[in-house]
Every structure is written in C-alpha cells, then in structure tokens.
C-alpha cells in the first residue's frame, strides 16, 4: 500500500480521519474531545481534495477510533473515511454510517432540560421524518429538534 495515496504525512500507527468537509475539522476536534488526549495529533485544514474541493484531515497517533465514534462522525461529515494505519501500512478503511443514537457530544437546545446539569451526559435518538429529513430527539426532555438546530 502506497502511503502517499492517503494525502497525509505518514504516521506509523493510529487513525486518519480523511475527507472531512473544510471548516468542520476543527469542530470535530473539540466535539470528540480529541484535544483532551495526550496522543500526538496532526491536523490539516483546507487541503486540496478531488472529491470535496477542499477538505480537512485529522491524524491521531496510537489511537484506533471505536465503531461508535466513527459512526458519530457521520453526523457532521457524512463522506468522511477513517483509515487505520499500522507500521505505516493501511490496515483498515471504514465508511461511517449514521448511528441510531448519539451520546455525550451534543447539547440539548432546550434550556430547561435536565441534561444540562447534574453532570449527566446527553443522549439523542435519530428520528426519520416523512420528508426523509432527520430529527434528533433528546432522550431526557423528549423534545425533537431538526438536525441543524442541535448541530449549530
């Protein structure tokens, strides 16, 4: 496997999140709390991309994202791919699929929702609407919000 096909500087071992829409990379870093680790992280912003025109890339050394984390990526960047690297070799390529529910990373827009205090973590379910749009339903206050309202 040719490492230069990944369009990122080689890492020895870890995960590369590729094809993130530009402007989203930074958001992902904080949302997924990647910045809270001690691991070495490199990010590339506004890199040229055939698919997207411009894209962001995140590389996290010595970390393999869990299936859950990968699927949660799909909410923000549906066409992202996650590459697993070991000994400079590509050993896995994963396309995220939208999860049924999303825990922890989102904040409920309802200011009176109990999920804002008590040190608990938020939990949302995806609800498919008649017009094929996706809503997010807070598991605590049971309010439904359009995806854009929760993500903004």
């Amino acid at each position, binding site marked *: 496997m040719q490492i230069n096909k990944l369009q990122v500087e080689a890492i020895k071992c870890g995960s590369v999140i590729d094809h993130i829409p530009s402007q989203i990379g930074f958001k992902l870093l904080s949302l997924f709390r990647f910045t809270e680790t001690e691991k070495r992280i490199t990010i590339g912003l506004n890199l040229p991309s055939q698919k997207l025109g411009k894209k962001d890339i995140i590389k996290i050394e010595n970390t393999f994202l869990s299936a859950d984390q990968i699927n949660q990526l799909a909410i923000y960047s549906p066409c992202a791919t996650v590459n697993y690297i070991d000994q400079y070799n590509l050993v896995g390529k994963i396309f995220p699929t939208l999860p049924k529910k999303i825990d922890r990373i989102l904040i409920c827009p309802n200011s*009176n929702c*109990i*999920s804002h205090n008590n040190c*608990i973590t938020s939990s949302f379910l995806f609800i498919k609407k008649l017009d094929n749009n996706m809503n997010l339903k807070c598991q605590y*206050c049971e309010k439904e919000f359009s995806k854009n309202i929760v993500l903004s």
Partner: protein
Amino acid sequence: MRNSLYKKNIISINDLQRNELELVLKKSAILKKQPAPNLLKNKIIASCFFEASTRTRLSFETAVYRLGASIIGFSDGNNISLGKKGETLADTISVISSYVDAIIIRHPQEGSARLAAEFSNNIPVFNAGDGSNQHPTQTLLDLFTIQETQNRLNDLNIAMVGDLKYGRTVHSLTQALAKYKKNKFFFISPDALKMPNYINDTLLENGISWIRCQNIEEIISEIDILYMTRVQKERLDSTEYANAKSKFILHSKMLKNARSNLKILHPLPRIDEIDHDVDYTPYAWYFKQAANGIYARQAILSLVLIENHF
C-alpha cells in the same frame, strides 16, 4: 394476562404499549368498583415534589393510602435541606431509593424523571410531571375517563382547545390516542399557541386526520370529547389575548348543538376558560375526571409494584 408493567418506570406515556395502557384502564375500572385497600400493605412510597403541585400530590397520596401503603416525602423542593445543600438530583434519588419501594417525582425540569430512574437502583419511578414534558398519570386518567364515558378509545372525534403549544396534557393525550384507529382531532388555539409540528407529524405517520379550526361552535355538533385547557395570559401579547378570550372560552349557550354523548374535560385548575354555567350541563365532566385520577393512579401503582393481578 401477563403484567408487563411490573417493576417498570412510568416516565412517559410514549413508553407504554397499547396493551399496557389497556391493562391500566382495566385495573382502574376494577379498583373503582371494588376498592382493594390491602394491595400495597407494607410498602413505603416516597412522594418527592421538588416543586409544589398540590392537586397532583394529594391525588397520588390518596391513591397510595387507599392501597394501604405508607408514604414519606416532601411537598416543595425549596423548603427541604436537599435543595439548600446543593445535592444533585441523582444523589438525592440514589439515597431515597434505599429507603422505599417506589418513588413519585415532580420536578420543574424536563427529563428529570428519566434521570431519576437512572439513579434509583431499580426502584420504580413514577413521573408526576417533569417541567413541560410528561405527566403520564394525567394521560392515564384522561384515557380512563374517555373510555368510561364513550365505551371506546377509537373512532372518536376529539377537540382540543386552548394552549396546544405548551400544554403537555394535550400533547400526551394526543400521542396516546394516536395508538388507536380512526380517531380524528380538531385543534383550536391562538396562532401563537398551535400544536407543535412533531405531534402533527406523529398523527400523519399513524394515518390519523387532524384539522385546525377557528372556534368551538363550528365543530360542536361533530365531537365526542371537548378537551379544554387554559391559555396563560403571559404566553400572548395583549391584543392576541383579548381575541383569544372570546374565541376560546366555553359558555353553555355554545353547547346547544352538542351530541348527547359529548363530555367536556379539563386537566384543572380552570381559571375562566369554562364558564360556571357549563358546570350545570350534562356535558361537564371535569370534576369526575379529576376524581378518576385516584383510580388510575391506584391502578398504575399496584401494577408496577405487584406482579400477579389477574
């Protein structure tokens, strides 16, 4: 009949299957006919009211006493040491759950009952109102009253009047009745307080028709249930409120074309949305509805706490 409600948390009407709703209604009817004072003898139940709600609390506590259980708790979260000492809801519930067999909780924040259930160490939690979200026993008593007066929960024409935007009782009742076939809804509210889209979508997804109407009189001859709610002044600007007042207040003269089986319901307290002259008509059913709250609450408490009933 298998009692699938045994040990279940009663947080949201949406968590209950149709057969579970029917189990509660059946049990409510039995308890109304034959009180069973010893069903919950030796059980201790906590009544935790983090905000005052006298009617709901007294109704729950009456239901508990009628079943022979004991009650501990508090009636206003502001006056208890728990609140003052800044303990989290999770910790409070975790401690109380080690004292009792069930917890009834009323709390001003949405989702609080769901959170309580996560920290109650498998002690069942009954939601007695979480902010503007759910109040499932209110919905159960509404369903019981509708079933009792109409002999069915399907093929009904139901008008809901007043604050349909913030009114959690109308939301839950609509969601519950959407589990039944061929019901039709008439929504009457000021523009600013109309039924939220997600409720309308749920109806459409279940193939249930609904229609927005201007006033009560235009549909009075078509409906079986007229569910009135209060429009709070502070929800509307003054002109809108003045308009709303004339359209959404029920007077007995508006009932002259009513069906003989029409029943008027209201979650109470009413302020001025039902004129007192309506009380003397055969359609007024809100006080009987409130009385049914005891039986519905007795039913759900006993089904959750005792496995074998029938």
